[in-house]
C-alpha cells in the first residue's frame, strides 16, 4: 500500500509520465480511464463499420426481387452477425467508452474506481469478437438463427459453441464495466457532488449499470443451457425431453428487454447534456428526468413477454404485458416533453452535436410511437416479425442510440483532443445521415404493414419498390458514415483550430473546467465545487 501511495504521489508531479511509456505499455497495459475510454470508442467504431458492412450485404441482396448475391443461409448469417456485432460490439462498448472518459471528469474523480479491472474489461472484447467473427470463416459457417438464438433452430448451428463463449466473454466484460461504473459513481465523487447534482448522463449510467449487472448473468445462463442442450444431452428447451422451447424465449427476453434500455438510457443522458448546453438554459425538470430514467429501468423488467405475444401466451399474460408495456410511454413521454421544454425559452445555436440531438428527439420519438403501436396485442399479431418491427427498432437504435453516440462524439471530441472538428463536414455528415437514414428505414414501416416478414432474403414483387428505396437509403447512409470517420481523423491529427477549455458557450459541469485536452491524470486533487459551475447545481425541482 505504501508503495502504491508513493507511486500515485509520483504521478501527480509528473503528469507527462505516460509519454515515457511505449505504445504497448500505454495502450495494452493502460489503467487510465481516458486511454481505456479511447480504446473502447475506437473498438466500437471498428465494430460499427464491420456490422455496417454486413448490413450493406443485406440491403444489396434485398435491392430487388430474386436472389442475386448470396445464398439464403449466408443471408441469415449476415442478419445474425449484423445484430450481434452492432449490439454487443458497437453500441454497448461505445457507451462504456463514453462513460469511461466522462464519468470521472464529470464527478471530479481522478480515475475509475477499479482501474486494472477496467483494463481487463476492455481487453476481453477483442478476443470475444475474434471468436465470434471467426465463425464466418469456419466450416459450417457463422450463427444463422438470429441474434435471439431461439432453439431449436440455434441448436442446428455448427458454430453454437463459439457464439456461446463469445457471449460469455462479452457478458463478463459488461458486468465488470458496470461494477466499475457503479463503484466510481458511488465512491469517487468529489466533495459537494451530491447525487442530485450529478449530470443526467452520470445518473443514466448509474441506472444502466445496475440493469447490466441484473441481466447479463441471465443471458449467460440462457446460452449455457443452449450449450448443454446441444452437447451434453440436456433437454431444457426440448419438449420431447420434458423441456420447452418457449422457456428460452422467456429467459432470453428477461435479459433482452432490459438490454434494449441498456442501449438507450445512456443516450437519454447524453441528450440531456447536449440540449441544455446549446439552449443555454438548464435542463427542464431535472428530478423528473432522473426519476423517468429510473421508472423506465424498473418497468423494463416486467415487459419482456411483449416480444413473445405470438407464441400463444395465456390471455391474462397478454393483457398484463400489454398494459405494463404501454405504461413505459408515460416516463418516456415526460423525457421528450422535458427536452422540448428545455429548448423553449432558450437561446439556441445549432452546432453539429445539437443537430444530432434534435434529430434524436424527433426520430427516437417516432420509434417510440411505433413501439406503442406494437404494444397493442391485437395489432401486434399483424406487426410481429414483419418489417414494421425492423423499422421500429432501427428508429430507436440507429436514430436513437447511434445518433446519441455520434452527438456525444461531436460534443466531447474537442475536450478529448484539444482540437475543434470541422463544423462544415460535421454538418455534411449530419444532413446526409438524417436524410438517408429516413430513406432507409421509413419505407420499412410500409413493407411491414403490407405483410413482408423480417429475416427473408427474397420477396414478392409487391414489396419491390420500397425495398429498392430502402436499399438506396442504406447504401448512402452507410457511405455517409465515412464522412464521420474523416471528421474524427481530421480532428484528432490534423485540425489546426484549438478548442477552448469551455469549448461550448453554454457548457456547464466539472469536465469543462479542465483544460482541452485534459491532463492525463485529472482531478488528482478533488476539485472545490461551485454550484454555479454545475449544470444542475441548484436543484429544487
Amino acid at each position, binding site marked *: 500500500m505504501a508503495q502504491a501511495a508513493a507511486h500515485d504521489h509520483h504521478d501527480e508531479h509528473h503528469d507527462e509520465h505516460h509519454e515515457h511509456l511505449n505504445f504497448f505499455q500505454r495502450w495494452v497495459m493502460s489503467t487510465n480511464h481516458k486511454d481505456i475510454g479511447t480504446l473502447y470508442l475506437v473498438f466500437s467504431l471498428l465494430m460499427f463499420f464491420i456490422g455496417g458492412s454486413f448490413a450493406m450485404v443485406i440491403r444489396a441482396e434485398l435491392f430487388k*426481387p*430474386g*436472389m442475386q*448475391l448470396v445464398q*439464403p443461409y449466408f443471408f*441469415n448469417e449476415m442478419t445474425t452477425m449484423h445484430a450481434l456485432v452492432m449490439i454487443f460490439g458497437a453500441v454497448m462498448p461505445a457507451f462504456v467508452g463514453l462513460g469511461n472518459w466522462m464519468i470521472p471528469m464529470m464527478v471530479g474523480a481522478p480515475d475509475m474506481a477499479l482501474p486494472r479491472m477496467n483494463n481487463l474489461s476492455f481487453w476481453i472484447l477483442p478476443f470475444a469478437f475474434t471468436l465470434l467473427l471467426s465463425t464466418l470463416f469456419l466450416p459450417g459457417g457463422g450463427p*444463422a*438463427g438470429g441474434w435471439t438464438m*431461439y432453439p431449436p*433452430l440455434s441448436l*442446428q448451428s455448427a458454430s453454437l459453441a463459439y457464439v456461446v463463449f463469445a457471449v460469455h466473454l462479452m457478458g463478463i466484460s459488461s458486468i465488470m464495466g458496470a461494477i466499475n461504473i457503479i463503484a466510481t459513481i458511488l465512491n469517487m465523487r468529489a466533495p459537494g457532488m451530491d447525487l442530485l447534482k450529478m449530470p443526467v448522463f452520470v445518473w443514466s449510467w448509474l441506472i444502466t449499470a445496475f440493469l447490466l449487472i441484473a441481466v447479463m448473468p441471465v443471458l449467460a445462463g440462457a446460452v449455457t443451457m443452449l450449450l448443454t442442450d446441444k452437447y451434453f444431452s440436456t433437454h431444457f428447451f*426440448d*419438449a420431447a425431453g420434458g423441456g420447452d*422451447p418457449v422457456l428460452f424465449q422467456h429467459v432470453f427476453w428477461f435479459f433482452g428487454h432490459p438490454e434494449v434500455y441498456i442501449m438507450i438510457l445512456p443516450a437519454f443522458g447524453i441528450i440531456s447534456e447536449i440540449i441544455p448546453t446549446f439552449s443555454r*438554459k438548464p*435542463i*427542464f425538470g*431535472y428530478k*423528473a428526468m432522473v426519476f423517468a430514467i429510473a421508472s423506465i429501468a424498473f418497468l423494463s423488467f416486467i415487459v419482456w413477454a411483449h416480444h413473445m405475444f*405470438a*407464441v*400463444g401466451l395465456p*390471455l391474462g399474460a*397478454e*393483457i398484463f404485458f*400489454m*398494459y405494463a408495456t404501454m405504461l413505459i410511454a*408515460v416516463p418516456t*413521454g*415526460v423525457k421528450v416533453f*422535458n427536452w*422540448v*421544454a428545455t429548448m*423553449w*425559452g432558450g*437561446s*439556441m*445555436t*445549432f452546432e453539429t452535436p445539437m443537430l444530432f440531438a434534435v434529430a434524436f428527439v424527433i426520430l427516437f420519438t*417516432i420509434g417510440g410511437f411505433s413501439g406503442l*403501436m406494437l404494444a*397493442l396485442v*391485437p395489432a401486434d399479431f*399483424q406487426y410481429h*416479425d414483419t418489417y414494421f418491427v425492423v423499422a421500429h427498432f432501427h428508429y430507436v437504435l440507429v436514430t436513437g442510440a447511434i445518433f446519441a453516440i455520434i452527438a456525444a462524439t461531436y460534443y466531447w471530441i474537442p475536450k478529448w483532443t484539444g482540437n475543434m472538428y470541422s463544423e462544415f463536414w460535421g454538418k455534411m455528415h449530419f444532413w446526409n445521415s438524417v436524410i438517408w437514414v429516413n430513406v432507409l428505414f421509413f419505407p420499412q414501416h*410500409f413493407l411491414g*404493414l*403490407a*405483410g413482408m*416478414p*423480417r*429475416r427473408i432474403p*427474397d420477396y*414478392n*414483387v*409487391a414489396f419491390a*419498390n420500397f425495398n429498392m428505396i430502402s436499399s438506396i437509403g442504406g447504401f448512402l447512409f452507410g457511405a455517409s458514415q465515412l464522412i464521420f470517420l474523416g471528421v474524427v481523423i481530421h480532428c484528432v491529427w490534423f485540425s489546426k483550430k484549438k478548442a477552448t477549455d469551455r469549448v461550448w458557450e*453554454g457548457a456547464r459541469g466539472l469536465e469543462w473546467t479542465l483544460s482541452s485536452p485534459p491532463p492525463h491524470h485529472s482531478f488528482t486533487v478533488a476539485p472545490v465545487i461551485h454550484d454555479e459551475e454545475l449544470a444542475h447545481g441548484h436543484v*429544487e*425541482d
Partner: protein
Amino acid sequence: MTSGGIGRYGSRPKGFRHVVGALGVLALGLFGGTVQANPEPGQLNLTPGVTTYSHVPYVLNNVALGVCVVIGILVFGAMFIAMFRFRKSRGAVAEKWSHNTTVEIIWTVIPIIILITLAWLATDGLRQFSDTTGAQMTVKVTGYQWKWRYDYVDYEGKAISNVGFMSKLDDQSNATRQLNSGLDPYAVKVDGYNTYLLNVDHPLVVPINTKIRFVITADDVIHSWFVPALGWKMDAIPGVVNATWTNITEPGIYRGQCAELCGQDHGFMPIVVKAVSKEDFAKWLADQQKPVAPAVPAPASTAAAPAQAAATTAQVAPAHGTQG
C-alpha cells in the same frame, strides 16, 4: 379465375389493378386499403382483412397511428416553434426557469388517459381473439423446414380421418428463386397477378362463413403461420399446440408467409388459403375423402385443389379450377 389468382373474387374494380404512376400507387395504398387482401405494390397500411375479426387489428392500428400522428404534430410543432423563436441568432436571451409543476402534471396525466383508451380498445379486441369456442371446423397446421402440413380434423361435428397434405412453394417460384437462376421474378404470374414466393402446390381449402379452429404446431423448429388477411399470426412450436380461429366472410385466395426465422429457406415457405363457399367446400371435401386408387404411389397427394403447378404433381383428385 383459377385457384392461382392473387386478387379477390371479382369484387374489385379492374382499374385498381393497373394503377400506374407514383401518385396512383400512393393513393391505392392509402385509400385502396378497403379492398385489398394481398400485398400490393406501394401498399402503405395494413389490410382490413376478410374475416369477422380482422377489422380489429386494422381499426386499432389506424386509431393508434392517428393518436401518434396528433401527438407528433403537437410535440414536434412545439419543438420547431421553439427552434425558430428561441435562436441566439434572433437575439433570444435564455430564460432562467427550469421546472413547472403544473405542466409536468398535465403532460403526465394526459398520456395516461390516452393510454387507457387505447388499452380498452386493445383489450376488447384481444377478448374476441382469444375466444376459440364454438368452432364448426378444426384444421391442424404443422410447420416443417420448409413447408406446411394441413390436416383436416373435423367439419360440422363429423371427424375427418384421411384428409391431409403437405403444402410447399410452387415449382415456378422455387426455380426462379435459386441464386442467379436467370429467371425473372416478375414473370411468375397467375392470372396476371404476380405470385412470386407467395404460391404453393396445394393451398389450404376452407369454407367461408364458418368458424374454423386452427391447432398449430411444428415438427422441427419454430415457425409462425401468418396470413395478413386473417388478421393474426401464430407461432408453430415443436411440442406445443397453439389454438386460434378465423371466420372468413368472403371467398378468395389469401396469401401469407412463415413469419418466424426457421432456417435457410425461411423466406420460401408461403401459405395460401383458398376460401370457397360451403357447397364447394363440401364437394371438395367429399372428393378428398374418396379412397385413393391403390396403384397411385402418391402419399402426400391426397391432394388439395391444384394450383397452377398441378402439371408437375401426381394428381388424384379432380381439379377445382372452376371454383375460382
